[in-house]
């Protein structure tokens, strides 16, 4: 997107909403800002209706601040808690149905490649663990098998939070949730490993307790997807509402999960991706 | 074979039929659908109307296969399988003897005074009931040794359908030899014909038997001509 497109025409400054003026004057477009700049610019996400202490809300804020070129990024969301905060995001984003985000992103990315052969348009598919790990898993994995060049990000709150806290495939074994009244009977899905095996050139796990690490991973994932193929990031998003802890304890819980090994930060990088990362980071 | 065309005769319901409908029954891979395509194509080349369709099923080698051809001097409206054919062609004796057919008995729906053309070396042993029914509708039953003609002349069983087309032309004169040859050329010639995967594989097999397309066409036309001569009517 050329900055001429969003700049306000002379004479219209006063009638444009403040939110829009702020975006034009202090927004992140064409500025190469990052997580360290949070608080100094108008963020892409506005007030959202997610719960207090929501790990997903924090993760989304960090992701949006980490996008390497928000002015040329389109997001594909899907049903779930995360979708409640898409309407407040100031970059083009799509909500279609539950779990089809990777199939839809495939069509979108290919369409943008046809229409903008000389420009880079990043597509990022985002969804919860229900959308990505359960109902849409077939479509997610097939986008990886096909080598589609976009990034998939999972907000993993280990439950169907939007519908009231039911068990998902990403819930921990033994977790007692709705629809798992006697505890989940099988292990958390090994999705980062599945992603690696299914053709993701980059597969990473992180938590919002590590904003800089998260930012680095998002940038790597988006840049590698442009050049090489599918990338995957899984972010632990503590859910105080459904896991019944105090909103103020979200960060502590995240750290506890890391400490106990229930949630392990990791990064799988293909040899081709490794080489490219070296190049990127040298250029920087 | 001097039998005059039977298709313009008045039928029992009194309608003078200028149209003809043909049902072809055989086994998957014998070319019943290709035969229908070539006959229909020849009729279109002659300026007539034609519609052609296969039996509606999943395609499998040696499973029953059926196709339908409608030819008329006027627009053809009716669609789908031919329930009341003028002509029934049986590409393999198993259609009758082993019931490898979607239509049972094989003459079901045949119009009065209709034609049956069977590929068999010798006359088949019909049941008493079949004989009775065939006589009742005044069926004209013809035999042609299509498989041996194909093997003798074209040296391939893939030409059985050509021999069956020859028998059909011999009995009904529904299309001319010239149009048949041209239709064959359109089907196997240079212009890429769109075939389903299994049919495309058989096309390749057919083409591999002959050095050049023209040779394929000539040999197959020889098969046709021989079948025209060899098709014979028998009393039921």
């Amino acid at each position, binding site marked *: 997107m050329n900055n001429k497109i969003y700049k306000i025409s002379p004479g219209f400054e006063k009638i444009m909403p403040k939110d829009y003026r702020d975006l034009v004057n202090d927004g992140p477009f064409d500025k190469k800002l990052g997580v360290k700049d949070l608080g100094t610019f108008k963020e892409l996400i506005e007030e959202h209706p997610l719960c207090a202490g929501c790990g997903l809300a924090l993760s989304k804020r960090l992701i949006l601040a980490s996008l390497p070129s928000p002015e040329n990024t*389109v997001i594909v969301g899907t049903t779930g808690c995360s979708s409640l905060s898409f309407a407040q995001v100031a970059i083009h984003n799509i909500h279609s149905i539950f779990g089809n985000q990777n*199939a839809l992103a495939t069509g979108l990315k290919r369409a943008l490649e046809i229409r903008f052969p000389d420009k880079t348009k990043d597509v990022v598919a985002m969804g919860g663990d229900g959308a990505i790990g359960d109902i849409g898993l077939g479509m997610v994995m097939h986008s990886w098998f096909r080598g589609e060049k976009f990034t998939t990000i999972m907000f993993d709150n280990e439950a169907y939070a939007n519908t009231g806290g039911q068990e998902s495939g990403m819930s921990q074994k033994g977790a007692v949730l709705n629809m798992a009244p006697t505890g989940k009977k099988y292990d958390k899905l090994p999705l980062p490993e599945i992603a690696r095996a299914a053709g993701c050139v980059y597969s990473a796990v992180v938590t919002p307790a590590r904003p800089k690490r998260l930012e680095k991973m998002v940038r790597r994932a988006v840049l590698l997807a442009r050049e090489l193929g599918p990338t995957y990031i899984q972010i632990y998003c503590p859910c105080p509402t459904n896991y019944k802890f105090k909103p103020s304890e979200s960060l502590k819980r995240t750290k506890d999960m890391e400490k106990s090994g229930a949630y392990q930060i990791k990064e799988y990088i293909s040899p081709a991706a490794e080489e490219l990362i070296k190049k990127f980071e040298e250029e920087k | 074979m001097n039998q005059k065309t039977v298709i313009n005769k008045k039928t029992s319901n009194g309608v003078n039929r200028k149209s003809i409908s043909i049902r072809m029954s055989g086994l998957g891979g014998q070319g019943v659908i290709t035969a229908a395509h070539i006959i229909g194509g020849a009729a279109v080349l002659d300026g007539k109307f034609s519609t052609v369709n296969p039996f509606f099923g999943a395609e499998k080698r040696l499973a029953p296969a059926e196709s339908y051809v409608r030819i008329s001097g006027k627009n053809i409206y009716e669609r*789908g399988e031919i329930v009341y054919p003028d002509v029934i062609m049986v590409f393999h004796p198993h259609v009758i003897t082993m019931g490898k057919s979607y239509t049972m008995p094989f003459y079901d729906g045949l119009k009065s005074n209709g034609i049956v053309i069977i590929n068999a070396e010798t006359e088949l042993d019909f049941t008493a009931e079949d004989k009775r029914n065939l006589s009742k509708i005044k069926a004209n039953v013809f035999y042609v040794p299509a498989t041996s003609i194909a093997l003798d002349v074209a040296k391939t069983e893939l030409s059985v359908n050509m021999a069956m087309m020859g028998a059909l032309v011999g009995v009904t004169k529904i299309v001319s030899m010239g149009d048949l040859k041209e239709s064959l050329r359109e089907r196997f010639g240079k212009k890429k014909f769109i075939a389903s995967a299994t049919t495309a594989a058989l096309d390749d097999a057919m083409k591999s038997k002959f050095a050049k397309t023209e040779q394929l066409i000539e040999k197959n036309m020889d098969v046709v001509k021989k079948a025209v001569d060899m098709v014979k009517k028998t009393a039921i």
Partner: protein
Amino acid sequence: MADKAIQQKIVEPEELFFKAKREKQFITGSEAVKESIKRANVDMAISYPITPQSESMHLVGDIYAQGYVKDYYRGENELGVMSAVAGASMGGVRVFTATGGQGALRAFEMFPTWAGARLPIVCAFFCRGLNSPLTIQPDTIEIGLLLDTGMLVLHAETAQDLYDMILKSFIIAEEPDVHLPVAVFADGFFVTHTREIVEIAPEDIKLPPYNPYKAPVPVMDMETPPVRQMRDPFVMKSNYVSYACHASWQQEVRAAAERARKHINKYLGGLLETGNEDAEILIMASGTAVSQSRAAIIRAEAEGLKVGLVKLKSLRPFPKDEIKALAKGKKAVIVPEFNITGWLAREIKSVVEDNSKVIGAPRVYGGMTMPPKLILEEIRRCSK
């Protein structure tokens, strides 16, 4: 993307539809689809080989390999394909896909979603029966289920109709005052697998490209100002603003379908076609049932019976005023259908005054063709 592009001249739709000299070809319905797409300037096509299957989408793959379509792939499943074409359409390109029967139902959730998102996708549906018992045979039951998705619904009688309707659907779908998906139905096997004469335009001309910036909804390409803008509007809050928003959006989708009438009239020559409409008895039908009716009418006329024919080409928008006027003063309206539910008879009954004269028969289902004799028997019965 395809390595090579075929050089075709872009012409006005009117030129391609009406003026260009047409050539007769002896082809199947599936091949007619391919010929249509060849001339439609389609950017992307996505396929899935579910049973029931026709050759149409693999033939579109062949013309992609020849350079007529810019991008094409086989999707992972029906829902995936219908989602991907939605993504492509939101990304601003012209897309095509086809499905049918069980496949269509597998992907059902996407069809109202396309309409709600105002996506001008053209999708061909090749009707088949639905389980259970397992079937792949022709049957139009799915049309009744898909009538109220918000898509425009056309029903082809022949391969010729299929060729023309698909080509024209892109232009109708993309009209800024319509901008809705078009579902072009054709009866599986009866049309898809039947070889017949089809008249087609030269292959070196094609439609003008789709212009996504004429759309009434923003294209998702980050080339328009970044207001907080989402496709599609997410209005599931429990408050009256949300309710009103959703309600008016649905009304607008239906209104857009109504506005398609004038374009359907222009390009398809009307939502319906009539013959001998002055007769006391009318047959109203769509798809293959029209063909079978034509054959039955020839026989009825030979018996001295007068009967008119109304061929419905557009089912959404539904030609309700036309049908109401045509049925006025008639002795009987016979509605032959290839399904057990009788959705067309139900539709017609809902708009005809004195609907007791609407005869929902004959109905053939299970896969067999409809012998014209059955329709003739209804004509005879109504003529007494």
